[in-house]
């Protein structure tokens, strides 16, 4: 099987076409079939019927081979000479190797010589021997030049001698390695910077050792066991000391410091590898950094202490509102009730179950009308609380009843429904039914109009209603983002709409956008306007409070970061220069916000009091803050179900 797989072995003498050893066997026909193609890759004739040309130039045809695999296998099995049959590549004929040829192949395989009779180890015969012979090998007489002095050498030597005589060549001086020193700074010029520039940063000196490095330090500088453990666990770069303080009783006991060479080496590395930079040390007294503000004592009055707690609600109190007289307080809560309180006594005068979470309440700011707007689910209830002067609330009822429906029904975005008898007995007078849930309601200063915010994405987010005519309209044609809250200007016909990041100011008369305020906040939560009408504060969920001066710019005049958590509500006082902000961190911060009539003077903002009291529930603290209309008092409602009054 070996020969069939490697049939190239006999082709060593391919150039001489066929070697004598491989001459065709006697059984083969006597004609000369020597191939004349030469030493070429025989694959070139693969696709041809012939395999080359003989001496006459006739084609040598390939022997007919029609054996398939099975035939080959059978032949392999049956033919006893199969193992010594090879294919001649040049002729394509099968050749059966003779015994001698097989022997030759075996010898070559073993690495022996092809010729059987060749002896590689014949004894060597030296030509020259170590034995002195009596006759010379050659008998030529010596040259004359081998015994007379060389002229060329003489010339060379004489040249050298001449050079030495002339002093051109001197003997080598032994080199002196010891350095010589002299006064290098004899002519020093302090002004020369010699190539160095003004950016040169001299290397800082090594830190001088402290008491803890002493061989016998005071005992307080030695590390305790825990400190030692902590020191070992720290990264070498993080350690404050690069050694452990040690105490030795006497100088004799002090060992060598094993890291001495390391430290010098590190210093070397620092000197030439460490990037240097000049750093200016801030040398300020921290007290100077604190801004000089007027003392809170000089800015009184402002609420300082908690005076009353109004208890009654069982869930979060989301919203607060106060009557214009300052006598009654209304609060809406998640326990689906609205409660009316007397401010001075903290007594709950009335509880109105409304059957839904109260999102917002607003007392009509007109002192002659006793009416409260309440947002419950998809409707705004207009409630007459029937508190206080009987004449007053009777007049309100009369006013509401005096409504005469217009002759032709107009298309309205909402439905105005008169309350049923049952509701009427509770105090509900009108129900304004919206298509979606209502978020906020706010009155215009005159007490006739009110605006409601619907949580919706369309242009129907903000609606303005007129109570006396029971008529609603949608002021906007397009939605400009999710509206957070809206506000009427106290004096002029302006309307403020706070979306997530901007506050837009619309002129209601001209029906156009007058201003767009950038709040620089992520998400505005609430907004309040200064009673003068020129300043606005915006609270945001990213715990910022932005104060806008509308005359100054559309960007905040100041951004206050007093609170640690999201602001829920902000409020201005009607008369006093105060504003307050309530936040999720459970505090109400009261600030003094003085606005001057002089346009050139900027408003003065000073925080005067941090009021704490509300307990944290559900990660919520204060949900609404509200000022008393006449007194410097502030109300706050919290997630703990209480309302607190600070005076």
């Amino acid at each position, binding site marked *: 099987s070996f020969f069939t797989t490697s049939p190239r072995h006999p082709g060593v003498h391919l150039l001489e076409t066929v070697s004598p050893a491989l001459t065709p066997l006697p059984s083969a026909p006597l004609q000369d079939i020597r191939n004349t193609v030469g030493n070429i890759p025989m694959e070139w004739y693969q696709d041809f019927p012939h395999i080359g040309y003989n001496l006459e130039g006739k084609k040598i045809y390939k022997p007919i081979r029609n054996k398939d695999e099975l035939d080959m296998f059978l032949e392999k099995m049956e033919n006893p000479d199969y193992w010594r049959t090879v294919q001649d590549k040049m002729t394509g004929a099968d050749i059966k190797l003779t015994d001698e040829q097989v022997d030759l192949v075996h010898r070559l395989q073993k690495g022996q010589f092809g010729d059987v009779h060749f002896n590689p180890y014949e004894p060597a015969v030296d030509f020259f021997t170590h034995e002195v012979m009596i006759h010379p090998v050659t008998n030529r007489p010596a040259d004359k030049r081998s015994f007379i002095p060389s002229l060329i050498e003489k010339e060379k030597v004489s040249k050298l001698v001449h050079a030495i005589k002339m002093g051109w060549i001197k003997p080598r001086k032994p080199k002196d390695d010891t350095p010589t*020193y002299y006064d290098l700074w004899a002519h020093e010029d302090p002004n020369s910077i010699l190539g160095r520039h003004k950016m040169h940063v001299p290397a800082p000196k090594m830190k001088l050792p402290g008491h803890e490095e002493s061989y016998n330090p*005071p005992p307080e500088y030695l590390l305790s066991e825990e400190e030692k453990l902590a020191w070992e666990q720290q990264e070498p770069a993080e350690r404050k000391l690069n050694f452990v303080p040690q105490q030795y009783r006497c100088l004799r006991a002090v060992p060598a410091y094993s890291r001495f060479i390391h430290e010098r080496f590190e*210093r070397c590395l620092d000197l*030439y590898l460490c990037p240097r930079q000049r750093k200016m040390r801030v040398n300020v007294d921290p007290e100077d*950094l*604190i801004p000089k503000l007027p003392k*809170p004592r000089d800015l009184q009055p402002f609420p300082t202490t908690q005076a009353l707690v109004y208890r009654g609600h069982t869930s979060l109190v989301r919203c607060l509102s106060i009557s214009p007289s300052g006598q009654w307080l209304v609060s809406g809560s998640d326990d689906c009730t609205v409660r009316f309180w007397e401010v001075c006594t903290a007594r709950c005068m009335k509880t109105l179950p409304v059957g839904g979470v109260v999102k917002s309440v607003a007392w009509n700011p007109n002192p002659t009308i006793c009416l409260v707007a309440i947002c419950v689910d998809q409707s705004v209830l207009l409630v007459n609380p029937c508190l206080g002067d009987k004449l007053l609330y009777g007049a309100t009822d009369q006013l509401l009843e005096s409504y005469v429906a217009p002759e032709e029904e107009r298309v309205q975005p909402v439905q105005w429904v008169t309350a049923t008898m049952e509701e009427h007995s509770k105090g509900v007078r009108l129900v304004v039914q919206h298509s979606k849930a209502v978020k906020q309601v706010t009155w215009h200063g005159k007490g006739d109009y009110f605006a409601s915010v619907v949580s919706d994405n369309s242009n129907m987010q903000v609606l303005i209603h007129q109570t006396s005519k029971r008529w609603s309209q949608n002021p906007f044609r397009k939605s400009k983002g999710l509206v957070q809250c809206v506000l009427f200007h106290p004096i002029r016909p302006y309307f403020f709409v706070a979306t997530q990041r901007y506050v837009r100011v619309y002129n209601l008369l001209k029906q156009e956008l007058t201003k767009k305020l950038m709040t620089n906040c992520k998400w505005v939560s609430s907004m309040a306007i200064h009673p003068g009408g020129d300043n606005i504060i915006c609270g945001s969920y990213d715990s910022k409070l932005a104060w806008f001066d509308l005359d100054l710019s559309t960007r905040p005049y100041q951004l206050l970061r007093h609170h640690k958590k999201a602001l829920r509500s902000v409020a201005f006082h009607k008369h006093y220069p105060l504003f307050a902000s309530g936040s999720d961190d459970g505090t109400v911060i009261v600030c003094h916000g003085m606005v001057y009539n002089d346009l050139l003077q900027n408003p003065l903002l000073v925080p005067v009091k941090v009021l704490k009291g509300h307990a944290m529930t559900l990660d919520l603290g204060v949900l609404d803050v509200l000022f008393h209309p006449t007194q410097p008092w502030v109300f706050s409602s919290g997630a703990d179900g209480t309302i607190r009054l600070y005076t």
Partner: protein
Amino acid sequence: MGGLEKKKYERGSATNYITRNRARKKLQLSLPDFRRLCILKGIYPHEPKHKKKVNKGSTAARTFYLLKDIKFLLHEPIVNKFREYKVFVRKLRKAYGKSEWSTVDRLKDNKPSYKLDHIVKERYPTFVDALRDLDDALSMCFLFSTFPRTGKCHVQTIQLCRRLAVEFLNYIIASRSLRKVFLSIKGIYYQAEVLGQPVTWITPYTFAHDHPTDVDYRVMATFTEFYTTLLGFVNFRLYHSLNLLYPPKIDGQADVELKPAEGKEYAMDSESYLEKLSALSASLARVVAPTHEDEVEMDEFPVEGETAEQMDARKKEQEALEKHKKLFEGLRFFLNREVPREPLAFIIRCFGGQVSWDKSLCIGATYDVSDPSITHQIVDRPRVEQQVVGRYYLQPQWVFDSVNAKLCLPVVDYFPGVLLPPHLSPFVTEQEGDYVPPEKLKLLAMQRGENPDEESEEEEEEEEEEEDENDKEEEEEEEDESEKEEEMKLKKMEEQKTQSNKALPVKVTAGKLRLEDKQRLEQEQQSEEKRLAIMMMKKREKYLYKKIMFGKKRKVREANKLAAKRKAHDTAVKEEKKKSKKARRA
């Protein structure tokens, strides 16, 4: 608007800096050569202010050199020497390969070498500049001078370092400019005031070095190459400023004195010269023989705008300095063989003392142990067998502490075998609010001329006695108290019984008068005001303020921690003392 568009990174800081690799390519040097050049020329990387701008927008970590620095290197003649040296090495290797020994000899004779004189002048245009940068040079030379003469680096370098270090020490002795010394666990720190500049260096304790494997000695050797050159020139100048000969010669008189002691059996003159010098016991020869009248009283010129008080203070300081310099004047020390000879001899000589040691210990001993004029013998063994009357036997820390305290401290605490007082660092100057160890307070009081030692000791004793009494009283009181308590309990029980009979849930208790602390209220108000004002700070200022306050608080915390630790330690020691006392009594 016309004009060409401005391209980025073609002006401004991007063009002022060059990365290390680009610098190397510009100089056509290999990295080791570039490093050597940087070390010798004192070129270091700079940290640009706006790294991204310099890095052309990339934030990859790179080291930047100033372009001006690199341009400055371009003209350096040493760069050519580096290249010559490279060629030399190549030729030499070839000659070795061909076994051409004569060529090897010739090449070795013509080995290219360079001098660093001009670089020293360039880096330190004035002498004061050089003095300011002497710390590292000295520390390195002192370290190298302690290296073994085998392996690690060239023997010549080590010898040169030793020579320069010894010369410098001799100068310090001659000029008496040593100010502070400190025995740390790392080595011995010295601080001298050379021509008004504080120069600090550290020497390792004399032990064989355990040579670390992760240290590149080539870098250190390159540094040392420069430092030796610098130190040589500095020494030359310093010696000449004192009219001393350089290279130093031992004073003829002293030389003669030394001769008979050492005799001929020691070594050849040329060999023992450096050792004699390094013994630090002989004074140096001067160019002009000094006459004592030479020391002219300096005229005083009042500086304008200086008040009389300031002048007085200055004068006092000057006097104190003069006194400090003559601290050991007139004292004769003898060093036992177990104390480190060189540092002690150096310090004592620096402050005018005379010093000697055993003849067999080192060359240059001037007197024997038996000399009756010896006033102090420095000993570091637990007990001394045969004590000679008329001299103090002291531990070496006394010398160091005395130098730092600027006065000869009382010797009681430093007798052999005694528990030494803590050795404090003279380099620490406590600011207000820092922790000051009690030993330092004591020392400061002593310097002011008070003697707190006796008082405190008396106090301590008194305290101890009082405490003893208190203990007894307490024990008695305890007994009394226990009786009282029992009575109280009984009473209470009775009361409870009577109350349960009545069983009334509502009780009226007398109101208590609540006293309002006005001061505290005011403080609270102030702190609230401050808190409110902090709320109004700008963001950046608030950050800075918080950082400063954090640092301050940490400082206070650390000081408190140390104080508490000390207190705990002191009480523990006291208790132990008491215990031992009681045990003794029993």
